[in-house]
Each structure stands twice: as structure tokens, then as C-alpha cells.
């Protein structure tokens, strides 16, 4: 048992609970309707009567995920892109900038 000072964390109990819940879920799953047909029209998605496009055409690529998040944070991302411009001189400039700030803080504040 891992004591964090204000609570504890016992992964074994968590794993056992997880297993128990999994067993219950599986139990419910096997109680399902066995007469469900695995063939025929009912497997196809209903797209307002339009034919279903090929799977390759509707594949969602990595770039499309979190489009909304990236749009919402666009100003932040613009700044970050400016900062990560891949110029090795800027890498050094950030480093020396932080170094100078650290020196000023330490000489003034301690």
C-alpha cells in the first residue's frame, strides 16, 4: 500500500475491482440476445439513404483529431510556432536569456 501522506493507493485492490467489474460486464454481455443476425442490411450504417463510402475514404487521419482544440488555442499556437522556429541561434538566445535572469534573481534575491 502506497501512503501519500494524505491518502493511500493500493493497486492490487484496484486491479481486483477492475477484474470483478469486467466479469460482471462479461456476464451481462453473454446474457444478450443470441438471435441477433450477423448478416444482412442491419449491419450497415444508415446515412440518410445514401450509399456507404469505402472505408479508406472515411479514414480519419491523425491531423484531424482535436481540430477544435487547436482552433481555440490558435493564438497560443501562433506564439509557440514563432518560438520553435528551428533556428539554433534562438536556442542559444533562450538559454542565455534564462541564464541572465537566473543570475539577476540569485544575486538580487538571496
Amino acid at each position, binding site marked *: 500500500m502506497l501512503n501519500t501522506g494524505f491518502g493511500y493507493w493500493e493497486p492490487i485492490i484496484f486491479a481486483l475491482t477492475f477484474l470483478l467489474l469486467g466479469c460482471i460486464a462479461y456476464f451481462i454481455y453473454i446474457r444478450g440476445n443470441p438471435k441477433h443476425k450477423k448478416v444482412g442490411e442491419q449491419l450497415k450504417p444508415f446515412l440518410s439513404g445514401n450509399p456507404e463510402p469505402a472505408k479508406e475514404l472515411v479514414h480519419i487521419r491523425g491531423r484531424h483529431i482535436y481540430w477544435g482544440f487547436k482552433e481555440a488555442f490558435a493564438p497560443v499556437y501562433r506564439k509557440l510556432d514563432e518560438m520553435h522556429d528551428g533556428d539554433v541561434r534562438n536556442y542559444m538566445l533562450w538559454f*542565455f536569456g534564462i*541564464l*541572465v535572469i537566473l543570475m539577476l534573481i540569485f544575486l538580487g534575491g538571496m
Partner: protein
Amino acid sequence: MRKGVAITIFFVFLALMCYLALQLHPFGEPPNKDMDQYFIDHAQEEVSANNVVTSIVFDYRGFDTLGEATVLFTAVAGTVAVLRSFRFKDKLAVKKLILMDKDMSVIVRTISNILAPIILTFGLYIILHGHLTPGGGFQGGAVIATGIALLIVANAPSKVKRMISKDLLNAAESLGALGFLGMAFLGLFSATFFFNAIANSGFLFGDKTPLGINYGNLNTGGTLPYMNIFVGIKVLAGLGAIVLVLYLLAKGGEEE
């Protein structure tokens, strides 16, 4: 914008450095010399070397020197690995170097042929007298490597390839590094890693050095001269390999 920030940082940095320089102890008057006084007082009897710096480099702080030799080994391995031949796989690659298989002029070749043996002898002298006079394995190895570099740049790539092979230099470098490590292991069997087992033992290079100012006895120093020799081999082979690889690359005659 960027320029302004850079200039500001430059001036603040400059000011801080000047402030630091004025905070340091007055030049030429170290406030504290506990550790260094020990080296000056004990180097002769403990390490039997007249050159205190060499006794620090190869005995008191010998482990640092192993690290230093390792750095050089790493750099040679890295340079050779980075410059190994490759086929361009990206489209943007445009620059191909032109093959220039030509000797330099007769004057240069004659002079370099005359100078090379003298440089080699001088380098050997520096390596062997490392524990007595200024110098040692690194410096002597570098001197010899300049002699090799002279021979390399004076001749055409095809001739150089016949003269010196990269594999030979690599093997010599590994040998030097392993020998150095072996001398360090020698101490492990008697006391600790890097223990100077040969000093004052009567073996070759194992004589006692006379204390105080003296004329120098080559047969002193314990493991120091051995380490100097191995480091010398390592350095000359390593630097030679770098010069060779860069030269062949520059002339377009890189090895497959």
C-alpha cells in the same frame, strides 16, 4: 525585435561578467592553496615525477585523463561515423564534392618530406619526457599528428590511401586506449584503480627521483611514462584519423 533582445542580453551578460571579474580574488594572489600545495610538496616522493602537472594529470587526477582520452576516442568515433559514406536519400541534397586527385607542388612535398621526420622525432621526445619537462602524451601525440597531417595534405588522395589506411589508425587508437586502461587496471591488482604501482619499485621507469630541484632522471615516474606512450599512440592515431577522413572527404575520394 530579435536583434534588440539579443543585444540586450549581450550587454547584460557583459555587465554581469565584468561584475564577476571584480568580485574574484586579486589576480596573482589565490586566497587558498591547500590542495595545490599538497601536489607541489608530495608529487616527487609519491609519484616520482619532476613535472607536477603531469603527476596530477596521470596520477592524482588520472581518472579525469581517462575520461579525457575517452572524449577524444568518442569524438574520433563520432566524426568517422558521421562522415561515413552514404547515398543521398532526400531530394533536397544538391552538393556533390568534386574529385581532385592531385599532389600539391614539388616544393611543398619536398619540404614536408624533410620536415616530417624532424616533427616525429620532436613529438617522440615530448612524449617520452612528459614526466620531466613540459609536455606529455597529449601534446606529443598532437605534434606527431601534425607531422602526419603534413604528409597527408601534401599528397594526392590516391597516394594517401595507399600510404595510410583508416583501419590501421582506428586499430592503433583502440590499442592506445586499451593500453591506457590496462595501465589503470594494473593499479587495481595492487591497491586501487589508477594506483601508481610502478613508482619507486625499481622496475623500468621505477627509480626514485631525487627530491627538490634536480637535473631529471628519465628512468622515473612509474606508470606515467607508460601512460604517456599509450596516450601518445592514441592521440596521434585519433587526430590522424580525423585529418585523413576530412581530407579524403574534401578531395572527394572518400572510402567505401
